């Protein structure tokens, strides 16, 4: 069993936030027979992200707490007003994983106190090994995907859309569990 984070845990007392959810269409106008691609980008900032550093990796690994799963959800909604907002792309789940491992990369193991590193399993299932701590965090804590709307789910003319997004994680030795959500600004897509 993974121990609960103590008051001294790296993320304790530090607030984790969701950055602004930035979303916009790749093309503002499109025809009805084509899809609409919307790029969505947001990231986890603060407590959890700051805590997930090399010293934390060392101590977490010693407790066999080696897997941090970040569950992202993102969906595209058409603005109709209040509760009438309708999802045109259902909220979809994307999971990213930070996995701790004992590396034999001589560049990363300068002494015996620093030999644990993290690689990231992207939501497409590919493992990525970065050699800079900040790159690991960027890949793990940033959601950056293009979501596709079937054009048939939009009406002809101008559609006002926005994105609802969230991120969730579970308890670890270095941070408690948490979830955050946010919405993007509205943007228009015209179906010709």
């Amino acid at each position, binding site marked *: *069993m993974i121990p609960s984070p103590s008051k001294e845990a790296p993320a304790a007392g530090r607030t984790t936030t969701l950055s602004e959810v930035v979303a916009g269409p790749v093309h503002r106008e499109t025809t009805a027979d084509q899809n609409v691609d919307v790029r969505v980008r947001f990231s986890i900032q603060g407590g959890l992200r700051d805590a997930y550093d090399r010293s934390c990796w060392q101590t977490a690994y010693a407790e066999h707490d080696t*897997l941090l799963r970040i569950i992202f959800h993102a969906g595209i909604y058409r603005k109709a007003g209040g509760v009438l907002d309708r999802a045109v792309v259902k909220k979809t789940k994307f999971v990213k994983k930070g996995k701790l491992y*004992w*590396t*034999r*990369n*001589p560049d990363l193991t300068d002494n015996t106190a620093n030999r644990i590193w993290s690689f990231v399993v992207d939501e497409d299932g590919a493992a990525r090994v970065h050699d800079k701590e900040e790159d690991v965090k960027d890949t793990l804590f940033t959601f950056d995907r293009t979501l596709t709307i079937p054009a048939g789910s939009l009406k002809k003319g101008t559609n006002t859309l926005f994105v609802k997004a969230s991120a969730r994680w*579970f308890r670890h030795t270095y941070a408690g569990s948490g979830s955050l959500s946010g919405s993007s600004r509205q943007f228009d897509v015209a179906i010709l």
Partner: protein
Amino acid sequence: MAVIEVLRQEDTPKVLNVIRKTQSICPECNRILPAYVFERENKVFMTKTCPDHGETEELYFGDYNMYLKFSSYWSDGKGTHAPNVKLENCQCPANCGLCTNHLSHTGLANIIVTNRCDLTCWYCFFYVKKGLEGAYVYEPTQEQIGMMVRTLRAERPVPGNSLQITGGEPTLREDLPEIIRKIKSEGVDHIQLNTNGINIALHPELAKIYKEAGTSNLYMSFDGVTPKTNPKNHWEAPHAIEACRQAHLGVVLVPTVIKSINDHELGGIIDFARANIDAVRAVNFQPVSLTGRMSKKEREKYRITIPDCIHRIEDQTNGEVTADSWFPVPSCSPITHFIEAVSNRPQYELSIHFACGAGTYVYMDNNRKLIPIGKFLDIRGLLEFLDEKADEIHSGSNRWITLAKAATKIMGFIDKEKQPEGLNMGKMLFDALVRHDYSAIGQFHLKSVFLGMMHFQDKYNQDEERLQRCDIHYLTPDLRIIPFCSFNVIPEWYRDRVQKKYGMPVEEWEKSSGEKLEAKLYRGDLRKLKPGQKLDMSCSTSEIFQKVSNLQ
């Protein structure tokens, strides 16, 4: 002691698409070197440069996309908390035994009970060769074996529970049944007997004797379905399998796969397993480990890796066993983590490196077609789900409520339309994961075959990150537990040294035992002709052999 040669960051070759940097050894002098694992033309290679002996570049994994898929399942294990070698004395791959750096507990322990063999295969490095300088017969006593097994059982947090008796040819030891009973009495549940099967073919009653002594299954060398690819036991294997069938002793077929020698018969081997599905539990392909000094040209001729075998199997089974059916061994970790979370106890975990091994189950339907379980079970989805449930329990959710909820959702990962008739995968998973009742899995085994891959390393492709996670270990009389890929990859530090220390020169053994080493060599008795038989009928009086012949 080897010296670490550390390149500076700016020395990283810029022209390579480097995936990962690790450490390896020089195949000439064993010096520890930085090594780059890189992609080229959709294959993965390793390169390393020794200041004295130059560069060695080697094929590491024959399919880059499969490498990416497999690497996503990388999961470090719990290690072992009762090491024999203290950290300050340890520098992989020197001084193995196990040490505090080692990241996997013993998954399968090997005990060599003799290094004598009744065969003399050209590619084998496990048996004593008479006439060579430094040839020692190594046969630990039953007392030594007992101590070795107790060392295995003392491992924590997970006591070793699975053991392979190996050689040489272990059946040459007449006290083998007593050895098996002794190992069983020390509390080892699973005992596997690694053999070429010849003695069992010659003396079928041995199968029953070994079974009754406590053997769980035979692990039988089987390199192909023709005499050319399998000169070792082509004629004898069907007889050995029949003996095991009668004794209700399961058989695992173990082909060593060598490119250009037998890599065209992988589908045929699976066909042979299908024809004997009531006795054959698994086929474990072992891409060859290239020992001794070999030129790059020779290595390219023989080198084959796990993805290469997987693609050949897809081709040679006419697409029945597709490449996407295979998962790396550590993909089992979410199952272990889920059971650990529910039981709140450390569990047996297969935490080897993702490049070391792979597997899949195939189920034979009523038309005798092999259906990989991934065709009717969403394996990836199920593993994700179990990871999430383990996370929930670790975060404070009630484990029994979480377990109950999980049980109701397991069926959602099974495609009942595609599930073979007569198979209830949902019940099997429920029983195994929720009730910890594995009897249904036993039933599943009767109509299924596990297909596995295990690629042992050699000095050319040796990767310290793989070695550190090895869970196939050797028990030695000095009570060390040595990873396979140290024991056999650097024999001058391990295997040869142990056998010399605890063995005796061949001449001395012959004098004390009163027999010649070569007296036990197999003379091909089952291949000899009876009067009136033609050469191609030499073993064809056997009904089993007819079945094999039909597959060729």
